[in-house]
């Protein structure tokens, strides 16, 4: 009988868990009281605990953070729930998705305190101030330093270099229709070679043996010879589409830290991504939301971002940590594109790219 007793005990235990779970669920929803301010973001949002605590202490608000999947999913759920938003502030819509958010009326106007300190080049929507730029990052081709020094070959520096025969079968990139760096790289080539020229460029790139995989994780961790995973997997591609901040990350996330980064950035292959935050249209706590946006462009948070999200600050005078300046200088002259132009062309370009490169 003892097994049965054990079983009954377990069943009762499970039942109690269910009951307690149901009981607890009632108190789970909140965020409507004026002392709580809720930030909705995507899965990559990260920060230092003490920095947020400082804001909570100063403002008297309790900050709740919710994450809804990847960048695309987070923006889309925010749009779908716009009439009854999950929170007060949304962070993490980038220039490739900005028009979608604005056209759908996701945000209300608010000119953040300190937005005059945001660098000129990042400012958008200057007449309505529906979004505030928070961070920027560059999508660039990274190279494996060891590979090129062993062969006494200069690593490529520009888009033009990538189609040269000496870099044949060396580049791996991501599917532009399912991966954000993959899309950024495509947009970079479109910005560089123009609406009519990028397809020719990709034909050459394809002829030069570019490999396309599903996402950044496979490209970087499985195919790129310069990464930890790539070394394990005996990867044979020394060029990968990643971020300008990947080399500093290779240093920061290594123990012991190497003296120089094992990877470098091809400076002429970059496309600039800017992420924005905005006050949600039907926010319940607009006052708290406004203060939160002020905090996001404030010096303290701006200087906290680089080592948490591996992005660069947009605020004039915000210090970038030494690891960044030393191992991953920001691209000098990245390709850029107007959000409206991206919105207009993106689906068509991705479609043509897919039939051109994948089929």
């Amino acid at each position, binding site marked *: 009988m003892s*097994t*049965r007793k*054990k*079983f009954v005990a*377990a069943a009762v235990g*499970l*039942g109690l*868990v*269910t009951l307690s*779970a149901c009981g*607890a*669920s*009632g108190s*789970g*929803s*909140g*965020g409507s009281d004026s002392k709580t301010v*809720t930030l909705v973001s995507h*899965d*990559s*949002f*990260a920060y*230092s605990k003490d920095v947020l605590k400082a804001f909570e202490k100063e403002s008297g608000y309790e900050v709740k*953070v*919710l*994450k*809804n*999947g*990847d960048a*695309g*999913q987070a923006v*889309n*759920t925010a749009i*779908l*729930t716009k009439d*009854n938003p*999950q929170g007060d502030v949304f962070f993490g819509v980038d220039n490739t998705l900005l028009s*979608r958010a604005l056209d759908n009326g996701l945000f209300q106007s608010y000119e953040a305190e300190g937005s005059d300190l945001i660098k000129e080049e990042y400012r958008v929507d200057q007449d309505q101030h529906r979004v505030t730029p928070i961070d920027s990052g560059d999508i660039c081709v990274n190279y494996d330093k060891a590979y090129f020094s062993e062969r006494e070959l200069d690593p490529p520096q520009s888009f033009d270099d990538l189609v040269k025969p000496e870099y044949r079968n060396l580049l791996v990139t991501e599917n532009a*229709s*399912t991966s954000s760096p993959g899309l950024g790289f495509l947009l970079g080539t479109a910005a560089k070679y123009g609406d009519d020229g990028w397809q020719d460029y990709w034909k050459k790139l394809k002829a030069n043996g570019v490999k*396309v*995989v*599903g996402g950044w*994780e*496979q490209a970087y*961790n499985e195919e790129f010879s310069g990464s*930890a*995973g790539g070394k*394990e*997997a*005996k*990867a044979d591609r020394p060029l990968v589409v*990643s971020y300008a901040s990947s080399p500093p*990350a290779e240093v920061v*996330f*290594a*123990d012991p830290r190497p003296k120089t980064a094992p990877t470098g950035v091809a400076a002429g292959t970059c496309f600039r991504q800017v992420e924005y935050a905005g006050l949600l249209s039907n926010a319940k706590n607009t006052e708290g939301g406004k203060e939160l946006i002020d905090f996001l462009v404030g010096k303290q948070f701006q200087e906290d971002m680089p080592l*948490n999200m591996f992005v660069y600050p947009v605020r004039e005078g915000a210090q970038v940590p030494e690891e960044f300046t030393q191992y991953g200088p920001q691209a000098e002259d990245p390709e850029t594109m107007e959000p409206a132009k991206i919105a207009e062309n993106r*689906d068509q370009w991705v479609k043509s790219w897919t039939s051109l490169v*994948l089929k």
Partner: protein
Amino acid sequence: MKSRGAAKASRGSAARLGLMAVPVAFFGVFFAYPVAAIVARGLKVDGGWRFGRIAEVLGDSAIRHVLWFTTWQALVSTALTLLIALPGAYVFARFDFRGKRTLRAVVTVPFVLPTVVVGTAFLALVGRGGLLDELWGVRLDTTVWAILLAHVFFNYAVVVRTVGGLWAQLDPRQEEAARMLGASSLKAWRKVTLPALAPAVAAAALMVFLFTFTSFGVVQILGGPTFSTLEVEIYRQTSEIFDLSTAAVLTLVQFAAVGAVLAVHAWTVRRRETALRLVNPSVTARRPRGAGQWALLAGVLATVVLLLVLPLAVLVERSFHAPGFAYYKELTADDSGIFLVAPIEAVRNSLEYAVTATAIAVVVGGLAAAALTRRDAGPLGRVARGFDALLMLPLGVSAVTVGFGFLIALDEPPLDLRASWILVPLAQALVGVPFVVRTMLPVLRAVDARLREAAAVLGASPWRVWREVDLPMVRRALLIAAGFAFAVSLGEFGATVFIARPDHPTLPVAVARLLGHPGDLNYGQAMALSTILMVVCAVALLVLEGMLPQSRSSTGGTPVDRTGEF
């Protein structure tokens, strides 16, 4: 007499309808309503339905190709899984060998691992520099074979546990009797055992089909960007392109396809489930005898090692590459920047969520199975069968659809659950319930109805009948089902990543996030955390199996008809 019988029958029906109330409410609120909401969002524009979109989307040859490939690969994966795993089910059910329990837990481990890690592991088998490459220069990555084999890897346990669970309880003396009467061993198996096993085989095939039909990560990682399934397409339409009407049509197509498969399943199984003589599994298993049986055991073990253990071992090995367990030590540091908490806390989060999800799945699924046990003729029976099929639908619906549906539908009090932690176990339980129902139903239906009637005649209340007659016989199935539900919720990723709170990452979410960052330490920690996830899964299953009834010495080794206890 007649009127009393009728009254009793209607009371029984009422009771069963009552049992159904909880599962019906659960599915209505947490599945049908959210999914209907997101589909309606896509197809309803300015108050008018745009059913014309269905024809437009289906008219697209690219979409039709995706549908064809999705179905084709799911059918082949299911057949391949059955082919490779059925001998395993036999071996685990009928043979006694050292390390059997541990191995049974190990084969379930792939089930809980996030595909992004399994992709890594599997590439070490079939990819560049992998075992096949080293031995024979064969590379299968970016071929459809990598997808198919990975599906076997993931679903091996589904067949072994579902079919093996019932097989172990079949009385071997029936097959022996057939052989004594002159049947060949193959014929005896085909005529006696196979019909008895059919419902379990069909249930396993159904689950494997649904899992592979909605495959996402495996197709993306191992197949390369040229292969696309409906699930990948739905992800693209909802997350990237934001074309909700196309996504809605694709979701409806998924429903239709899954519905058709469920109908076929119901049709094949309906006449095959019969009352079986179930025996204590501990007495049906014995040491292999003769060269043939030893060869079978060796073959199954070799398959398990090559296909399942080897890829897992790759992950474990990589997690130890840094000297002094550096990757594991790093997991306890809470200053990494990627997480708000030390990554190791994901273990506790995952366990809490999985226990809650298992509890919900066992209660909801158990009630549903109990309600569906007796098959009625007529309209009530049809309703019950329809509901039985409905319960399986979550397995065949995209996690992205469910995630989006949750966030747009469960947004009003009293069900404003969007910020609540309970959303995670609820989403996980949705996938667990079908396992509970499918594992328990064949066994419950195999219980001889006359036993229940006898107990009722002797004055037992329906609850008492269930407790005294059904429960002891289904205890094994219940524990197996709970193990499945636990494993499923431990490994759920697609919907969880939508709704997990940032300070409460689950293990798969944490692994994926670590792999999303450059750097040796992040990669190493992802491997270490995956190893921990495997161990957590294996230990939990072993604990559950430890609760299985053990053989009793008093029976003296003869098969025990457990009904004899009453």
